[in-house]
């Protein structure tokens, strides 16, 4: 259990085994990178490019395929949605986890049940509503609904319930209100959960294709998943360009993951609980 005890053999063995398994996990990622450096006639016929062809990477940043605006739009939509979703979900999750009010469980089940409706069938009413709210074909059509995550409420509720009650109870007896407990105690304690939810929620917004497809029509508003559609030609697909763009698109995701990971690791286990 002691991490400082030098190199242990069993640990090394497990690491190697996990690396082999991990390699299996990243094959599609490697294929994506490899294809982005191939020329059009090489796709599907070989694993590695015959020579490094940078032209695909160049053309996604210039000319017709210019990805810069898509990138900015995606960043804007995903960051605002995620930030909103994390705060709003944490807020509601606290209500469900730490306040016993009338009808709490029923209300929570209503919440959960809304997660069960296939998005395809509520798309028409949403479209009518957005048109009426005057947000059809604006980024708000993605951001506003994106700030409400039922999954987030559920996930954070579970984690808040895992925070030992004694901690919050003593604070309550000391005269702190729910809001103070939420901001001062629960939020800092739930960092790993908040960061995890942020990572996952961001990935959903970042890759959201269906909503963007239907609710955005002006190309200047397009997000990356819509931009990738440019590579679907009439009767075939420009896989080289698509994979070059996909490689670029995954970079912010990885950055968010690395950033969030820090908060996942330095959890409450060693620090705050007993302190």
């Amino acid at each position, binding site marked *: 259990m002691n991490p400082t005890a030098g190199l242990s053999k069993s640990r090394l063995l497990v690491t190697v085994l996990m690396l082999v398994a991990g390699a299996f996990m990243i094959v599609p990622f490697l294929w994506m990178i490899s294809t982005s450096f191939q020329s059009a*006639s090489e*796709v599907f016929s070989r694993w590695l490019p015959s020579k490094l062809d940078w032209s695909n990477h160049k053309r996604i940043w210039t000319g017709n395929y210019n990805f810069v605006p898509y990138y900015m739009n995606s960043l804007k939509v995903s960051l605002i949605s995620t930030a909103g979703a994390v705060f709003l979900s944490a807020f509601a999750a606290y209500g469900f986890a730490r306040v016993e009010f009338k009808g709490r469980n029923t209300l929570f089940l209503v919440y959960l049940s809304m997660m069960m409706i296939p998005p395809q069938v509520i798309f028409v009413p949403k479209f009518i509503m957005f048109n009426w709210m005057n947000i059809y074909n604006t980024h*708000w059509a993605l951001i506003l609904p994106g700030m409400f995550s039922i999954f987030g409420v559920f996930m954070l509720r579970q984690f808040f319930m895992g925070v030992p009650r004694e901690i919050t109870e003593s604070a309550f007896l000391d005269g702190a209100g729910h809001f103070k407990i939420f901001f001062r105690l629960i939020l800092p304690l739930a960092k790993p959960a908040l960061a995890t939810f942020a990572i996952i929620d961001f990935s959903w917004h970042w890759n959201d294709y269906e909503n963007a497809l239907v609710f955005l*029509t002006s190309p200047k*508003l397009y997000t990356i998943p819509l931009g990738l*559609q440019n590579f679907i030609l*009439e009767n*075939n697909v420009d896989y080289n360009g698509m994979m070059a763009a996909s490689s670029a698109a995954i970079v912010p995701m990885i950055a968010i993951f690395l950033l969030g990971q820090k908060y996942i690791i330095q959890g409450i286990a060693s620090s705050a609980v007993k302190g």
Partner: protein
Amino acid sequence: MRKSKWWMASMSVVLTAGLLAGCGSNGDAKEGGASSPSGSSESSGNSGSSGSKTKLTLWGAVPAEAGPQAVIDAWNSENPDIEVEYLRYVNDDGGNLKLDTALMTGQDADLFISYSLTRLQKRVDAGVALDLSAKADYDIDAQMGPDAALWKIDGKYYGMPTKKNMSFIWLNKQMLDDAGLPVPPLDWTWDDLKAYAVKLKKDNVYGLLQHDSSYTATLDGTIAGLGDTNAEGKSNFNNELWKSHLQTLHDMMFVDKSTPEYGEQLTSKMPVDTMFLKGEAAMLSAGEFIFRNANNLAEFPHDFQIAFATVPRVTADQKDFKYPGGLGDALSVNAKSKNQDAAWKFAKWYADGGMLPMASGGRLPSSKSVSSDEAIKLLLQGVENMYDVDSLNKVVFGSFESFQLSIPQQVIDARKEEYEKYFLNKQDLDTTLANMAKRHEEFIK
């Protein structure tokens, strides 16, 4: 310390997001609002009549750089008072949904191109396609010829079929010559093709490859001749011609091994056009869109000549086989558009030659106002000697009795499921045909 770091991080995320929101808010402004870019170009462009400029949006499925951009650039420089913007949608379920949603709001979609009769039918049902046969200043029948009538819905034109559709067998002339085979005659049959494929296949060369979009060309052409249903209103899907054709394909896969097994083609994601151009197949069944890659010798180098053959009939005595092709790219005016006159003006211009820049990608205009020589010149510029001229003229520029597929998507999908079972050896041929007919009848009930 930890706490403050955490808050710093989350605050910075919110701030960045806020900044980006600020930057993007210009882009959010809806049309008609004070969005600066269009406003400034308007005042500098034609200072005399500010505000009289009409903006139109044209929706099509061809990637902008494959011609449409050049088309609207030409229009915009000729017509400073009507500015057209091209919006590309992908012609799949999602893309069509996007277009139909936009059409419902009546803005940002003044003109649109439909690529199949069933899609156009839905738009007519939704009341978003203008009746163009009511227009006195353009006679679609006279301009576009007899094949245009296949695009009529309830006797009216809701879209102008602007392009010649083509589907045929692409042949590697070099391989034909090596095998001592002549370019096949126009009235050849699937038995002939099967014999060709056996002779042409080699170790790493398939006799025949079929592109997805042409896989059912013979089935469709046959049923178009027979009619979907017979006199008693029963499905015609269990006809002998289909049976014979499916049997032929099955034999080619499993007996001759001259065409890929169905499961193999599905799971290898075979890029059939690239394979043909690389010399890994002697024959390819596909549409005119292959021209774009075939003409691109830099990215798809090949040194053989390409010859053409028609899509074969099932039997030599098959009477009313219809050839895949006819006309396509039906251009419609949105009935909810506020600028219908301007849109109609553009539509006429587009059909009567405006669309020529797309010819190099294989889109030949259907209007008789366009000289076909000019279109052909654009199509074959610089690569004339890569094609077998005789068969090119007879097949690609020949004229054949044609059809437009009007079978509903549900029935097409059901049919596909059934023939897939046959090609995957899960179901025998008679059951397959019986099931196709049964499911067809269930739908029309």
